[in-house]
């Protein structure tokens, strides 16, 4: 049996999306060309734009297509800062590396950073943010939901705080993990910039978008032709964009009750592990994490070996984020939550997707306890 529980790393491409992309690949014109081949390709891009706009609750002109979540995050933050002289920027301590490392680099370039802490559940401490806000704050970037723990951040709540104290600040949120798993729309959130990535919503890898609220200015990071209103030059990834549009349409939250289904699987997963494995800690408050994400520390074992043993049984899970797999540093997210560093070494993320079944969770619950037992028997940390 194959059980894929690593949907926060990436998701299977939906068959509908594959069909859409196969169709788009045949319409091969360059969307910038004047002739009919070009016009047909342009239609594909614009149809995808309107699907994504509908899913996010914004207008078409507010969508810029990119090569993925990482580029969207960088374009948002670096591109917005190109339009201001202000040098104070704020983020949370639990951002994805695309935001986290961008802030690190900006810090080295002379920007003044405030990094807001989180509580033991991984949720931003709003009071700390309030104290950090200044009149000359240029930008605030706080993710909508965390990739490692699924913790949902109070973005909607902090927007008015920011607007009050730092009326000139641009507000960005990385919604790469929230999109399709949390019911939101950009107008309600009130943010200026919002990043999404296709491959987290059963779309293709290498396609993403940035919502840019009308009136907010973002300058391109790379130069070239006039594509995407000169904010993102380069011939458009037409098939990828078509896939993103279709995936967004399919993902509109609550559609087909996927979220409800995942919630009940999540509850079963947590209960099952609690029942069958002792000496664990569930990281994050299950009531305030994404419907699909469970992060558990298994004391006295190391995460990679758990992944490998489960992999031998056909089960795919992960430690932190996929892009640090094979890295030696423990997760900055769990560290910020105050998780004991040794326990953090044994933390596993189970992330479900829209194709996850009850059967698969039961299979996991069968296979997991002996794996932990075996590794604990090998562990010098066990009594």
């Amino acid at each position, binding site marked *: 049996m194959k059980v894929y529980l690593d949907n926060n790393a990436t998701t299977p491409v939906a068959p509908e999306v594959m069909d859409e992309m196969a169709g788009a690949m045949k319409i091969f014109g360059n969307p910038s060309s004047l002739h009919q081949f070009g016009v047909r390709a342009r239609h594909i891009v614009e149809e995808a734009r309107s699907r994504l706009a509908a899913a996010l609750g914004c207008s078409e002109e507010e969508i810029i297509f990119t090569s993925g979540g990482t580029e969207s995050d960088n374009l948002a933050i670096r591109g917005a800062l190109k339009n201001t002289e202000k040098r104070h920027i704020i983020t949370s301590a639990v951002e994805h590396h695309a935001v986290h490392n961008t802030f690190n680099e900006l810090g080295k370039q002379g920007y003044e950073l405030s990094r807001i802490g989180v509580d033991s559940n991984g949720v931003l401490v709003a009071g700390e943010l309030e104290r950090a806000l200044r009149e000359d704050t240029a930008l605030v970037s706080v993710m909508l939901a965390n990739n490692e723990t699924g913790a949902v951040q109070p973005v909607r709540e902090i927007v008015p705080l920011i607007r009050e104290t730092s009326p000139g600040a641009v507000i960005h949120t990385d919604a790469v993990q929230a999109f399709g798993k949390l019911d939101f729309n950009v107008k309600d959130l009130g943010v200026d910039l919002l990043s999404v990535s296709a491959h987290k919503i059963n779309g293709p890898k290498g396609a993403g978008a940035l919502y840019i609220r009308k009136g907010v200015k973002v300058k391109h990071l790379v130069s070239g032709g006039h594509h995407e209103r000169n904010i993102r030059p380069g011939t458009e990834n037409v098939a990828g964009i078509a896939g993103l549009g279709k995936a967004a349409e399919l993902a509109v939250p609550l559609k087909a009750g996927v979220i409800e289904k995942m919630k009940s699987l999540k509850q079963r997963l947590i209960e099952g592990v609690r029942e069958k494995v002792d000496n664990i800690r569930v990281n994050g408050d299950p009531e305030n994490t994404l419907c699909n994400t469970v992060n558990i520390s298994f004391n006295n074992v190391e995460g990679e*070996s758990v992944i490998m043993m489960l992999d031998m049984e056909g089960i795919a899970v992960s430690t932190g984020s996929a892009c640090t*797999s*094979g890295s*030696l540093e*423990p997760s900055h997210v769990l560290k910020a939550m105050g998780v004991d560093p040794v326990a953090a070494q044994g933390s596993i993320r189970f992330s479900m997707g829209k194709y996850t079944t009850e059967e698969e969770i039961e299979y996991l619950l069968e296979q997991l306890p002996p794996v932990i037992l075996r590794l604990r*028997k*090998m562990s010098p*940390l066990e009594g």
Partner: protein
Amino acid sequence: MEEYSSKVMEHFRDPRNVGTIENPDGVGHVGNPVCGDIMELYIKVNEKEIIEDARFKTFGCGAAIATSSMVTEIIKGKSVKEAEKVSNQTVAEALGGLPKVKMHCSVLAEEALRKAIEDYRKRKNT
């Protein structure tokens, strides 16, 4: 990340000599759980200075477990003198190579072995 060799996978899947030795002649304890790796290596040495038994306990990644297993296999039956010559390179090679980011695991195995032999010598001389 580069992939593990089939030898690494074999030793990870089915590690040899897991456990401790009661009344060992030498113990090597290395690593730090915060960095994600701890190895404990136990040796039993007979009067001819031959390593009769070797066992390990490891907290760590796949490579850490496989190198622990491999090092015990390599030294079993060897004289202490010969065992001293076993380097991290020897272990890594015996495993068909290790991904670059995992070479430190073989270094850890070498260190555990050195410490166990040191410990054996210390005990003998007291």
